[in-house]
């Protein structure tokens, strides 16, 4: 693998930062150079959030730019649409089939687009979707939605499953480990 650019996009509060932390740890275990760029502060309050994870021989800029993402992991449908142009030709789009209405939609100033996933799938053939919220619920904690998605994404990379599992063990707090390992397994086998 020469280089791998992954974007995690979602809504502030969905647990994207934990997912990026696991990803960074995975990269380090593979002894790639890695940069993980996150934004804290105001946008974490229910705003649109993005994390860039770049792996390679040598990584300079921490940012992934338009047309450069090998994988986009979208925690929410509208965010998948928002960041679509960052996907490179043939890149993989992974979408959580969850809808969170932004305030302009809630107050009737904007419209939430219809059939987002179908439209993306029609135009970007390397797209998969999953109801991660439901799977996380079945695993025993809806907050584990981030790790379900990570499991699904892990299958899309050529990095061994054991490396992902050991990274989760390093990053996730002990008392939440069991449910998160279950969530990873569920996401991984859903692919």
């Amino acid at each position, binding site marked *: 693998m020469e280089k791998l650019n992954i974007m995690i996009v979602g809504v*502030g509060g969905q647990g994207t930062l934990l997912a990026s932390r696991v990803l*960074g740890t995975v990269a380090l275990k593979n002894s790639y150079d890695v940069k993980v*760029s996150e934004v804290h502060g105001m946008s*974490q309050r229910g705003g649109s959030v993005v994390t860039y994870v770049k792996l390679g021989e040598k990584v300079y800029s921490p940012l992934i730019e338009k047309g450069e993402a090998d994988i986009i992991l979208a925690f929410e449908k509208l965010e998948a649409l928002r960041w679509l142009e960052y996907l490179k030709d043939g890149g993989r789009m992974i979408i959580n089939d969850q809808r969170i209405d932004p305030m302009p939609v809630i107050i009737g100033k904007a419209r939430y687009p219809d059939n987002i996933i179908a439209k993306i799938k029609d135009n970007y053939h390397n797209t998969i979707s999953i109801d991660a919220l439901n799977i996380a619920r079945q695993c025993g904690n809806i907050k584990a939605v981030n790790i379900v998605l990570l499991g699904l994404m892990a299958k899309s990379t050529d990095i061994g499953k054991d490396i992902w599992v050991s990274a989760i063990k390093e990053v996730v707090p002990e008392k939440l480990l069991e449910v998160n390992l279950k969530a990873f397994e569920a996401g991984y086998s859903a692919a």
Partner: protein
Amino acid sequence: MKKLMLGNEAVARGAYEAGVTVAAAYPGTPSTEITENIAKYDEIYSEWSPNEKVSLEVAIGASIAGARSICSMKHVGLNVAADPLFTVSYTGVNGGLVVMVADDPGMHSSQNEQDSRHYARASKVPMLEPADSQECKEFVRQAFEISEKFDCPVLVRLSTRVAHSQSTVELGEKCDYKLKDYSKNPDKYVMMPAMARKRHVEVEKRMTLLRDFSNESSLNAIEWGSKDIGVITCGIAYQYAREAFGDVSYLKIGMVYPLPDKLIADFCRQVKKVYIIEELEPFIEEQVKKMCIQATGKEIIPVIGELSAQLIREKVFGKNHAGKALLNETVPLRPPVMCPGCPHRGMYHVIKKLKLNVSGDIGCYTLGALPPTASMDTCICMGASVGAAHGMEKARGKEFGKKTVAVIGDSTFIHSGITGLIDVVYNKGNSTVIILDNSITGMTGHQHNPTTGYTIKGEPTRQVDLVKLANAIGIERVRVADPFNIKEFEKIVREEIEAEEPSVIISQRPCALLKHVKFKGALRINLEKCRKCKMCMSIGCPSIVDKGDHIEVNEALCVGCELCTKVCSFNAFEKAGDN
């Protein structure tokens, strides 16, 4: 050992390895995690100070007393701490003193986009700027050496993308730093005119020595490639430039003040065309051009916002990125919102109903300026709400004052709202100040402050009693109210704005994200009871959604704070999951 670290975490590691024993800060994005990580080292005393000025004064005291000390803040925090900065430049240090300042190009979480490098020049303090986490750690270590060698504080500037990017760091050993001797030295540390005049001479001598150092230091390094183009750059802009220009020659500036003038002249002589790539202001560029060197910089590179490799490629080479056309869809914006369960929502509901003028401040509650709350009229800087409300009343008279409130968080009030409130009392103002006591500093990610009763290490401490404090400075009307008890809260606000004297309302309810805050679980709407009057929509909760033909609760978001039940006249909300 290699570890993946945020830039901020690496700064903390650098401080630890340098033998720092005192660290002080006021939280501010993107600098907060520096001191949060320092607090994890038992060897270092650390504290959240009430504001940046105090934190720098604490660090200065520690330095004069012989310890290596560090103080961290965001760019606008340095405005608050500027007063001690300019004078500690004159006194110099005893133990090394490093001041971390984190700029926020693009304003991800800030009210302006100032370039803190100007402070280095204005205060005659050297400044370093790392470009990744490894450099964060190394530069902090070196900053302490420079501080002691040249007898001056050292500024280290970060930007959001360095502070909040994780990259690999090779950990080093902690150095064995011994506390330096303390001796009385008024000629050096008491800055009265007679002493300060002599110290200013020392400062100018130091600048010459520092410039020589900058020319020789490995902090400034040339990476030779093709000599057709030479790029002078610093900090995160270096990373973008490396991707945009590829195999050309680079002069990477790690010491941004004072600049290595001879090195720059030498570099420029050896390349055909010079580009200066820096984020925000033409700080390096103006100094280079003053040396009569031909270079291209801000003629093409924007002074506004963040740079990126694509932006540089576009501006320098005219390469327009052919991004794949978006689906033909309008994507609605997703601005940040107050969280489900947020205590501020109840307060804003009342303020909006009473159609008050709102002099606002900095914190999560600033989000009350956005629709649908749309109730905040001003937001300038930390603490400004109180003084500004007073000024509004003095400009437009008492009747206007009676339709005006200041809204300020507990931590922001301690930071610099207190002085404004004293002004109101002293100068016979009539303002009503609402202090939002949510038991934590919220926006920056839950830090303790003097009103929470806990230190940065989570140890119990004396808690500032806001009621007694207001009483002590002469406010006789102090009310404490729960913003989720909407009726009572409205009654109190009405009474206090009408009062013929200044008053304080303490809006007391903990942040919904605090671990100990427990709600009863998600609600849903009983569609048979709902009359679609949309009163519940008016509180601006992100989990209550208008679906066109009905109103719906997003159960994955709802925490069950029940504020909506208090505005619903038809008892339409019920616990989700019950049948």
